[in-house]
Structures are given as structure tokens and as C-alpha cells.
């Protein structure tokens, strides 16, 4: 029983970390500029496809493709931000939704056109496969790797936020945008950089996700719901919130499937609704 409970916790935590990487960018940008970017998972999907192309077509090692996935997603998001999103900062939530949903539709169609509708194969290197024994329990190596990457990312994010000037500007802009502008902080620039970073992280998440959940042209849609759940439950503009919410959701999803498989998908939605009814602003949300 202990063995399986540990297994469930570990796998759930790994899945949660994946969700965290996919969601943290959206949480911070939503909290900062209130810009509803439903195309967030399109950037994740882009990162995934970049990783696939690099490892399969060009023969790069998997690990080398990860930073490229991050960069590709970041660069493309900057382009979108400059050209399209910037015009809609003052627009209504609904218009932002419509625009970004339109972008999701386009990205799904483009992915289908370029890569076809099939599952993308990705063969991770042998040293990332199989299981390894940790404290007498057998854990998946790839999941361990995923958790490692996510924790490193978290540390970097938290350190940046707490100890750098840029981080201080981000925190100020999230707390009170108007005040931050009043103090002379170039909020638009801060937002652009944060947006690029967040999308880059989503791209990284997309690349890492392939081994766990697969990649196909509909990825941008499929994971949008889960990302929204993490962001809402965690609270807008909060890295800690995304982390805790993702972990909670990953573990409850896994635990639900193991202990109550008949409930299936119920549990994750039920947990979300209950948590939001208890804390509407999210676990770590402000407003």
C-alpha cells in the first residue's frame, strides 16, 4: 500500500510539475496586465513541435532541443505581442478571448497542415528511460528528470523575483499597475519581457510534455482547460499559487484515478469547483 501510495504521489507530483511549467506564464501575465491569452497553449504546442523537428528531422539530442523550444516559443510570442496583442490591451475581456481563440484555431490548423494529424513520435535518449530505484521505490527516470527541471525553473523564477531589480518591477506591476507606472516603471516593457518568458516556459513545458502525454495538432485546445484550472485555482499573478495549484491538481488527479477510478475525471473538476467556491480569488490570489 505504501509503495503504491508513494508511486501515486510521485507520478502526481510529476504531472503537476508539467502543468506548472505550462501554466505559470499565463498566471503571471494575466495577473499583471489582465490580458486573457487563451493562445498560451499554442506556444506550448509550438515548443513541442520544435523539439520534435529538431530531434527527429535534424538529429539533435533531446536535451539540446529543450532550450531551443523555450527560445522559439519566446520569440514567436514577442512577435505576436508586438503585432496583435498590443492593440488589445484596452479592449474588453471578450474581445481578447475572441482574438486569442482565433489564434488557437489558426495554430491548430497550421499544425495539422504542416505536421499532419498524427501523434508525434519522440524517442527520448536511453538514459532518460526506464526506472531507477530511489529509497527502495521504483520511480520513472523521465518523471524524475521532469521534476528536476521544474524545480530548477521554480528556483530561478523565485530568485529572479526576489533578488533582481527586474523581479521587483514585475512584483510592483502585478500588485498595482497604475502605481508602478506612476513610479516610472516601464510596465509595457516589463510586461513584454514577462510575456516572452512565460510563453517560453510554456514552450519548454510543451516539449517536456511529449513523453508523458503525447503531442498532436489539437494540443493547444486539449490542455487549455487544465491550464485555466491551474491558473484560476492558484490565483492570478502568483508563481507560488501556480506551483501549489498544479501540485494539488496533479496529485488529486492521480490519486483519484488510483483509488476511485469510477469517478475518473470527476475529481479534478470537483476539486477545482470546491476550491474556487472556498477561495474565489484562488489560493494565493489577491483580488
Amino acid at each position: 500500500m505504501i509503495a503504491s501510495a508513494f508511486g501515486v504521489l510521485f507520478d502526481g507530483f510529476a504531472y503537476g510539475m508539467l502543468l506548472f511549467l505550462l501554466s505559470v506564464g499565463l498566471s503571471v501575465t494575466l495577473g499583471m496586465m489582465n490580458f486573457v491569452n487563451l493562445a498560451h497553449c499554442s506556444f506550448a504546442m509550438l515548443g513541442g513541435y520544435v523539439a520534435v523537428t529538431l530531434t527527429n528531422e535534424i538529429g539533435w539530442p533531446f536535451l539540446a532541443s529543450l532550450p531551443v523550444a523555450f527560445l522559439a516559443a519566446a520569440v514567436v510570442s514577442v512577435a505576436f505581442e508586438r503585432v496583435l496583442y498590443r492593440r488589445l490591451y484596452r479592449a474588453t475581456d471578450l474581445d481578447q478571448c475572441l482574438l486569442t481563440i482565433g489564434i488557437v484555431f489558426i495554430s491548430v490548423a497550421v499544425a495539422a497542415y504542416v505536421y499532419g494529424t498524427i501523434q508525434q513520435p519522440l524517442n527520448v535518449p536511453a538514459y532518460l528511460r526506464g526506472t531507477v530505484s530511489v529509497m527502495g521505490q521504483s520511480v520513472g527516470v523521465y518523471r524524475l528528470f521532469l521534476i528536476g527541471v521544474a524545480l530548477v525553473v521554480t528556483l530561478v523564477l523565485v530568485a529572479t523575483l526576489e533578488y533582481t531589480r527586474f523581479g521587483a518591477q514585475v512584483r510592483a506591476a502585478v500588485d498595482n499597475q497604475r502605481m508602478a507606472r506612476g513610479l516610472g516603471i516601464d510596465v509595457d516593457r516589463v510586461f513584454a519581457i514577462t510575456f516572452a518568458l512565460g510563453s517560453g516556459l510554456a514552450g519548454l513545458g510543451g516539449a517536456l510534455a511529449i513523453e508523458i502525454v503525447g503531442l498532436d495538432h489539437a494540443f493547444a485546445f486539449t490542455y487549455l482547460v487544465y491550464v485555466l484550472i491551474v491558473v484560476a485555482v492558484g490565483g492570478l499573478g502568483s508563481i507560488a499559487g501556480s506551483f501549489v495549484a498544479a501540485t494539488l491538481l496533479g496529485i488529486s488527479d492521480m490519486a483519484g484515478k488510483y483509488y476511485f477510478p469510477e469517478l475518473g475525471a470527476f475529481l479534478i473538476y470537483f476539486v477545482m469547483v470546491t476550491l474556487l467556491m472556498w477561495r474565489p480569488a484562488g489560493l494565493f490570489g489577491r483580488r
Partner: protein
Amino acid sequence: MRQTLVGFAVFAAAILAFAPAEAQQTIKIGVILPYSGQFADPGAQADNGIKLYMQQHGDTVAGKKIEIVRKDTGGIAPDVAKRLAQELVVRDKVDLLAGFSLTPNALAAADVSAQAKKFMVVMNAAASIVTTKSPYMARVSFTLPQLNEPLGVWAYKNGVRKVYSIVADFAAGHDAEAAFQNAFKAAGGEIVGSVRYPVVNSDFSAFVQRAKDMNPEAIFVFVPGGSQSPAIAKALADRGIDPRQTKVMAQAELTDEQALKNMGDTALGIITSAHYDYNHDSKLNKEFVAAFNAAFKRNPDFFAVGGYDGMRLIYEALKKSGANTDGEALIAAAKGMAWESPRGPMSIDPATRDVVQTVYMRRVEKVGGRLVNVEFDKIENVKDPVKARSAN
């Protein structure tokens, strides 16, 4: 409101822009498939099968030209499928209906086939009851019980006594589960546990762990293809379940070409039952695969062969009926038709209008450096067992 002018204008323009096409010397076939969405790949493959057959045999049958009108259901959407079937019959004036990768869509469109008395060829949908919904319908693909009951029988015959079953929690999964479990238990085996997982699931570790807890000799699996095939194989590997020790049994989708590429060596030893594989060793199949690759640069799968054989049935039925497109005439022509397909011998059962074919048992092995399904046994002339039982 002035703005309603837009609505009116658009509405009127939309209406006036349409013009129905007229044709005398053509036979129109309405093809309804999921060309977009989650099931776009099966749809594309079936369409490829159709295109290849027409490429090889020309587009004229019994003196009339064949014209295909394609409609997209976008996935599981029975109301859309029914509307598309209605529109094909009423607006495009098609003479027969074909396609149907998904059971709910086939069931809904069957109403139209029955009401309008149109010949309908189902090229993939696999639930047993589909063909009962219209007397003008024939199926060329397979049924879930047709593939899963032989698997249950085979398991017992080969020494397996305890099985844990993992299936997707929707109609097809339930059908497969019932078919396998009934056959296995009837032979004398024991199902030590079973679980149904939510359809939109990406992580199987919890379910595989449950299976492992029960320590079965074999695990029966049903996944509807796509990303779930490699996902479950990886989950099995992660938990240390080797298909060569603990038998893993499923129907064809688990080890299709894409899935094998994704699974790598974790797939070795998985046993599947299928009616078609592109590696099937027959002259006809080798030619089919070569032609398919030349035309579409990929290998065919059972969706493609469904499209291919469906067109063959349509062509031969039209020839037999003398280009009479009446539903009665065509279904009468189709009943009992038998031929050699790239999959092997097959025929249309005159009593149920369903497909009768050979079911192959295969195991995943490495041949020449590639992972392939190697046939090691076969059961011939398998009818759909559910309908066969209710007929007796």
C-alpha cells in the same frame, strides 16, 4: 436596428449564393468522414483508401461516372452527421452514402439511409448494433466483438487463467470489455479485476498500478488509439511490466504503426488481434501497400483498407445491379459478395449485411531492426459474434 441589416444581408446573400448542381450520367456518392478534429487521421486514411481505389480502377462504373461529395463531421457529432446525410440526399442528390469512422455518427446517419432508402457503406464504425439500424447498410470494416472475443478464446487456450482488464470508459470500451470478458469467462478463465478509465486520459500510471497490485497473468487493454497507445505502453514499462512475461492483449489500435514508433522496445511481446496489418504477407497486400506508399507516402492501416474495400463493394454492387442505384437493388447485390482483399478473404454476410473475415493473432517483434506485428495464428470466417448469437 440598422445593424440587423447586416444579418439580413448576410442571410440573403448566403441563401442566394447557393446553386444546386445537376448531373444525369453520374452516380454521386456522399462520403461522410471526420476530416478535422481529433479523428482527422482515421478520416484522412479512409479517404486515401477511397482515392487509391478510384485511381486504380478508374472513375467509371457500369457506364456511369462516379462523383464523390465529401462532408466533414469534425469528430463525434451525430446531429451534424445526420444533417450532413440529409443534405447529401436532399440537396446534393447523392445516390448512396459511405464513410462513417465513428459509431455515433453512423447510428444517426442510418436513420437517413433507412428513410430515404439509400445504400450505405460503413467503412469503419465498429459497434455491433450499427448494421441493425438500416436495412440498406453494409459494413466492410470490423466489429469490436469480432476482434475481442477471439482474443478471449485464444487467451484461455494458451494457458492464461487470470486477467486484469483496463478499458476506456465509453461505449466502444464497454463493448470490447464485454466481448473479451464474456468469451474468456465462458472458456473458464477468471477476471481478477477491471477498471474503466476516463476517455480523456493521458496518464495511465494509476491504472497500471492497480493492475499490478492484482498480479495477473495477463492484462487486457482497450484504448481508442491516438496518444493513449504509447502512453499505456510507457506506463506498463514504468511499472516494470514486461509484455513478454505478463501478456498484454488488445485489439489492433494498440500497436498500429504510429504507436509502435512511439513505444519503442517497450512494445515487444504485446499480443493483438486484428483484421488488417500492412505487413500481412500476401501478394495482393504487398501491391496495395506499394501503391498506397507511392500515392500518399505512408503505409496504409485498417482505416485505409476500410475505405478501399468499401469502394470495391460499391463498384462491384453497381456493376451487379447494372448501375441501378436503388437502395434495394444495391443491398441485394452486396449481400453475399465475397472477394480477396489486401487484408485476406472477406465477404458480406447476407443475413446481417456485416463483414465476415479472418482475424489474425499477432505479436510485436523486431524484424530487420523494425518493430512489426508478426502474425502467428489466424481464425477464419469470423462473423460478428453478438449478432450470430442472437440469430440462433
